[in-house]
């Protein structure tokens, strides 16, 4: 396969709108969690989330008008607006603006989402019930469909290559980057915009995930303490929203136009647990096989991995299962690596998580900084792996493994490496 590198990054996260603003807050150890104030949460067991800071667009705030015309915004759910923002940033960051036909047909889009337009479906079904079918907007369906994130981006930027969307719950973002890198590697496109997007923060999703016993419910009065992966007092994840998009580019294409190369995608692994719809397999075998597949594809040894961006959602079961699988992967070398969960700061962005975390992994390589696991006061089990509690660490980071595991037992791992000319 042809070599594939990352040449552009775009991010709308609960920490900030923008890659650098988000990264700065992440490495400073800030949490994005707060009480939900946009709708009534008084009857919900989880009343907190990591919401995007909205504002006029200055100081890292997110202003939707900067990314999509107001009349278009009305037609779509927020996940499409977030994806448009992240994709536009990524293209600008990469300096790639295909205008002639040949460049356009060689540039594609693969942005996924775990759930898609749940807020719009909730609203439309209530309206339908109240007023009947004649009041249903013609934009109801196209504004909710998951692949319309890729669709809108393609239409807006004139990208005529492969147009695709991934739906694998919380593994979506990682699968999208992995699958899109294969399309570039195999020659279906020279450039792919890839990533994930999610806008799940509504009453329906909070109630639904709470019913699955997946959300944190004991920190409603102390939101920034709620997401605490590996800590003994963790009690579930905190929902996040946003989008991460990267520009993946064939190496020679990137070099020929003098693009900045952030990292190379050298490994991608996938596996299925075949175990349970929401719980990860207790032996961690699916996670292990997924990581091993990525490592084998990369042609490296586990010990070569300097940093692991964990799936680590802060659920009681999942964190230790992943940790056990990583220990099995590393064997006696476990003490040489660092692993942190950036969900401790951003919350869990579901279908966007894997893409957002691939961006943080890329920046870890760029800056030789490992972001921290917040709130890790009392690890629930002993491990030789450095879980980077509380504070970011400066350390050599040349190779990163990023994990994402989703409902249905779907697993994806990416291996990124510093690009050496």
């Amino acid at each position, binding site marked *: 396969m042809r070599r594939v590198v990352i040449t552009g990054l775009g991010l709308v996260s609960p920490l900030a709108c923008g890659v650098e603003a988000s990264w700065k807050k992440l490495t400073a150890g800030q949490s994005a969690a707060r009480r939900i104030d946009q709708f009534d949460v008084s009857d919900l067991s989880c009343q907190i989330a990591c919401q995007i800071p909205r504002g006029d667009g200055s100081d890292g705030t997110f202003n939707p008008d900067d990314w999509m015309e107001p*009349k278009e915004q009305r037609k779509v759910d927020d996940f499409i607006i977030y994806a448009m923002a992240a994709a536009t940033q990524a293209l600008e960051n990469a300096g790639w603006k295909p205008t002639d036909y040949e460049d356009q047909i060689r540039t594609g889009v693969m942005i996924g989402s775990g759930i898609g337009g749940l807020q719009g479906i909730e609203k439309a079904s209530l309206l339908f019930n109240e007023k009947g079918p*004649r*009041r249903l*907007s013609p934009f109801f369906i196209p504004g909710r469909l998951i692949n319309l994130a890729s669709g809108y981006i393609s239409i807006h930027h004139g990208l005529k290559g492969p147009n695709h969307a991934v739906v694998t719950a919380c593994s979506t973002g990682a699968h999208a980057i992995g699958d899109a890198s294969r399309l570039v590697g195999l020659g279906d496109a020279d450039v792919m915009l890839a990533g994930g997007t999610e806008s799940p923060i509504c009453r329906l999703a909070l109630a639904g995930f709470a019913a699955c016993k997946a959300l944190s419910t004991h920190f409603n009065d102390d939101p920034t303490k709620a997401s605490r992966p590996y800590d003994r007092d963790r009690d579930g994840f905190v929902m996040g929203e946003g989008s991460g998009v990267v520009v993946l580019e064939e190496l020679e294409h990137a070099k020929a136009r003098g693009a900045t190369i952030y990292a190379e995608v050298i490994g991608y692994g996938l596996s299925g647990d075949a175990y349970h719809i929401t719980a990860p397999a207790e032996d961690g075998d699916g996670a292990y096989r997924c990581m091993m597949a990525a490592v084998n594809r990369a042609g490296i040894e586990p010990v070569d991995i300097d940093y692991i961006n964990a799936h680590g959602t802060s659920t009681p079961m999942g964190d230790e299962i992943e940790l056990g699988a990583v220990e099995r992967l590393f064997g006696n070398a476990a003490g040489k690596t660092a692993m942190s969960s950036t969900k401790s700061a951003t919350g869990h962005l579901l279908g966007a998580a894997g893409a957002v975390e691939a961006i943080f992994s890329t920046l870890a390589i760029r800056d030789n900084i490992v972001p921290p696991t917040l709130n890790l006061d009392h690890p629930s089990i002993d491990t030789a792996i450095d879980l980077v509690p509380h504070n970011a660490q400066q350390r050599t980071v040349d190779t990163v493994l990023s994990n994402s595991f989703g409902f249905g037992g779907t697993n994806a791992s990416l291996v990124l490496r510093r690009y050496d000319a």
Partner: protein
Amino acid sequence: MSDIAERVKKIVVEHLGVEADKVTENASFIDDLGADSLDTVELVMAFEEEFGCEIPDDAAETILTVGDAIKFLEKNSS
């Protein structure tokens, strides 16, 4: 200008995101105001909502300009 015309123009401005002075009676939704076929479906729904009337599909197909909408609603609104 009639009250109905004012209200029609306001809806068109809001839904299509166009400048008010472009919304003349001769303006065609699709050719002059940048609407697509889905936009026109939504516009008709917005008129129905605003004026408390039903616009059957065959009548909706004849509403191509701002003036068409005003004329229809002047005849049919409650």
